[in-house]
């Protein structure tokens, strides 16, 4: 089947209007030697067959909805109000493109303006853009902005910044003279002494993640202060759900703050699409990458919205643009906007509070097992690192847990070879007390 409505008779009639004897005449500019043979793609399917195929493939995955998952490590599953799915499924939200024609795109534009405002409020930052691809590329774009804004060439990142974000930045720096240096951690948090030693007046920026990849809370205020002392920009990569309780990046002096925002109203979807949240101080506004919606007026003086400051962007500036980005993750930004308006100030605080409580309860219970110990003695939000006794290899424990219907903590050895028995556990509002209690029962039998 296909989705082209014109019948063969209509196509013939259209060819006559064109003045072409046949379709082949239309593609005469394509040299004959290049004409494709039949594609090696399976034959088409009817709707019912595609549904069956999709269900069969989806059935070979184990959905988070079928088990109790303690996986986080940069991708967090949270509640999604019914209204988010219901509203965002409307074709008027799902099927327009980038709102170039402002007058026919006021819905999308106003929603982006509301999104930018909410992100600014949550982060306590001056400016938010319409979103970037994901959290990892937002870290990379933030560092590139710092290089442009300072004219300097060194980037310092904590080793407790998500390794995938560091890898994406490294890829983005191919062909650039800038260098990256990792700052070690001590007891699960970035070592300020090492940071202090690495800071010189050639440092463009320092990047820290809050909470960091081990779940620990970083000394953001002090790190920011050290960075500013040498004239560098301080970049914070944060977890939006935590901001219902934790200090927002604007309060500790971040110059740029970014996040993976998918956790605000969209499912994990095996890691993508994500939603890159990108915020900055007013001083950096004209160097910010990506789209910005602005409020203005129409010819009758009524409030209206439009994309603005487009002279930063690739379709105007071409090779002198601040970034090559030409989309945002509009549909996920809309979902985040609806999510935040439903939860509101109290809902966001309660959500964060609930995460703190669930994670505390789970960690206390896990400590009942003699072979499990917290890896670090640090405050945490909803995620924490455990160290298993060598007699209980992390992967073996996880296999036993999987058989009992649990996704255990993420084994950190692959990312941090110095932590062969490290396991990273995330406990959100979606996990019930009976599930945690059952987990402990299963672990006690191992």
């Amino acid at each position, binding site marked *: 089947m*296909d989705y*082209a409505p014109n019948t063969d008779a209509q196509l013939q009639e259209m060819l006559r209007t*064109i*003045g072409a004897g046949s379709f082949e005449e239309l*593609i005469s*500019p394509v040299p004959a030697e290049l004409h494709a043979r*039949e594609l090696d793609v*399976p034959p*088409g399917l009817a709707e019912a067959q595609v549904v069956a*195929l*999709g*269900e069969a493939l989806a059935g*070979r995955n184990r959905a*988070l909805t079928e088990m109790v998952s303690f996986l986080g490590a940069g*991708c967090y599953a949270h509640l999604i*109000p019914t209204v988010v799915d*219901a509203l965002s499924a409307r074709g*008027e939200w*799902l*099927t327009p*493109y*980038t*709102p*170039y024609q402002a007058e*026919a795109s*006021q819905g999308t534009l*106003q*929603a982006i303006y509301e999104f930018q*405002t909410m992100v600014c409020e949550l982060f306590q930052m001056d400016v938010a853009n319409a979103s970037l*691809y994901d959290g*990892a590329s937002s870290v990379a774009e933030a560092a590139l902005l710092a290089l442009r804004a300072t004219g300097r060439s060194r980037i310092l990142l904590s080793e407790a910044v998500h390794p995938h974000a560091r890898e*994406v930045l490294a890829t983005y720096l*191919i062909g650039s003279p800038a260098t990256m240096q990792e700052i070690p951690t001590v007891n699960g948090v970035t070592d300020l002494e090492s940071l202090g030693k690495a800071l010189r007046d050639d440092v463009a920026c320092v990047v820290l993640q809050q909470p960091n990849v081990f779940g620990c*809370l970083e000394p953001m205020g002090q790190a920011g202060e050290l960075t500013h002392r040498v004239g560098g920009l301080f970049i914070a990569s944060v977890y939006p759900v935590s*901001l219902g*309780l934790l*200090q927002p990046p604007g309060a500790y002096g971040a110059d740029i703050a970014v996040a*993976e925002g998918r956790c605000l109203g969209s*499912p*994990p*979807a095996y*890691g993508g699409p994500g939603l890159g949240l990108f915020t900055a101080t007013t001083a950096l506004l004209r160097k910010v990458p990506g789209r910005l919606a*602005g409020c203005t007026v*129409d*010819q009758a003086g009524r409030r209206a919205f*439009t994309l*603005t400051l487009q002279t930063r962007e*690739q*379709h105007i500036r071409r*090779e002198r643009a601040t970034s090559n980005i*030409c989309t945002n993750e509009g549909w996920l930004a809309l979902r985040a906007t609806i999510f935040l*308006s*439903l*939860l*509101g*100030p109290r*809902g966001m605080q309660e959500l964060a509070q*609930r995460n703190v409580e669930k994670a505390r309860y789970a960690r206390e219970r896990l400590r009942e097992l003699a072979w499990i110990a917290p890896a670090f003695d640090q405050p945490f939000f909803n995620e924490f690192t455990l160290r298993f006794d060598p007699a209980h290899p992390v992967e073996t424990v996880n296999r036993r847990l999987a058989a009992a219907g649990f996704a255990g903590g*993420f084994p950190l050895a692959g990312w941090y070879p110095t932590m062969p028995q490290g396991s990273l556990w995330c406990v959100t509002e979606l996990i019930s*007390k009976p599930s945690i209690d059952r987990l402990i029962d299963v672990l006690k039998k191992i």
Partner: protein
Amino acid sequence: MSDLLIFERSVPGRRGYWLPPSDVPAVSVGEVLPEDQLRAAQPPLPEVAEFDAVRHYTRLSQANFSVDTHFYPLGSCTMKYNPKLNERVAALPGFAWLHPLQPAAQAQGILQLLYELEQCLCAITGMAAFTLQPAAGAQGELTGLKMIAAYHRRKRRARSTILIPDSAHGTNPASAALSGFTVVQLASGPDGLIDLQELRRKLTKDVAALMLTNPNTLGLFERDIKTIAALLHEQGALVYMDGANMNALLGIARPGDMGVDLLQLNLHKTFSTPHGGGGPGAGPVGVTKALEDFLPVPRVRKVGARFRWETRGRATVGRVHGWYGNVGVLVRAYAYIRTLGREGLARTSRAAIINANYLKAKLQGTFPVPFDDHCMHEFVASLKSLRAHGVSAGDVAKRLLDYGCYAPTVYFPLIVEEALMIEPTETESKETLDAFAQALLAIAHEAQHNPELVRRAPQRMVVDRVDEVKAAREPNLRFSTGDAPKVPGTFGAGRTVAS
């Protein structure tokens, strides 16, 4: 528009969502988290009831034109119908509720889907291997350019120039610059195609690659593509193809057979995934065998009947996405390809090409097409003749909105004066194309006899023409909570939603 912002609907104490009661012991946050790590006050988000939000975002949606509601002939964007079936498949919990760190044994279905999608894209394009990681076309370009840089470094060649035709999308030079290359522009020939003499002149030993779009942004097929590729290859340089216009080529010609070394596909264009008001998209990159080792990691591998992620690569450029790419988009594209199959894909491009040529034939008496040949899936008309009446392409675009059509891409490509770039796609019926042609011809008539009407357009949208200069001069990028509304909300008093 005269509608309120969600912030202006806020009433202290209202709420739209409740968590279930807690089943774990309460914790005093002040006791478990250091004081200086805590937020001083709740974030000042709006306080609205669930129904407030439902009506607000429903009404707001109605202020949009969209593919579902209006003809959307936005050139180069391939605004085709986005099948609902694909949404249904992508929403299956076995796809939507998967964590990227689940062991491969728990993710065999999605790994198989991604593997088969790569195979299908290879078959459609004639490339040897694909990465599905880039989140958008522009990120695909960036990935391709990083690979070009890595390839030359591996060959120990210092190459710093990327050749780009003057008709290219703006992302091409921006991506090249972001990858540390110098951009050298190629002037198009009199036929709108790459000029071989110009190419030979600028093809120095410093050229790393040529970035071209085929069919190009004029909707014309680069007839000399094989010669062009051979010229580049003789110099040890590569050919990168911007695959944004692949909707013209399905089952008709394959970039791999043309001598293309790398290309990105825009799944949100050719493969029907919804644009979502500007994303998420997906920009997979395909390469020849010689470049496969440079692809980003991780890559999905089939070993026997099982699938797994391979995280290492000998010469890989690394990673461009936090996880594996926009998987939710990839699932939709897979459903689309399997629905159409080999015959449906070929019929798609045929219908897209006929639709574009038909529309061109209906319009070109009034709006000349400067580089006139049979076009592929789109064409570019010039509205230069309307200048005599003080009417610009931008004015005509706005007037089209009043006729219930989204506007074509305007002022692009840059090599056509008063350009109107029209891409109808295969999913529009002849009746719709006829109505659109009639509207454009009517506007041409208006431009001659009542130009003020066209210059003042649009008049039937929720807002009149928007002051973009003010928006840029006095940037207002966020609502200040506590500000009184600048304009009282009167939604319903005047024009409400777009027709």
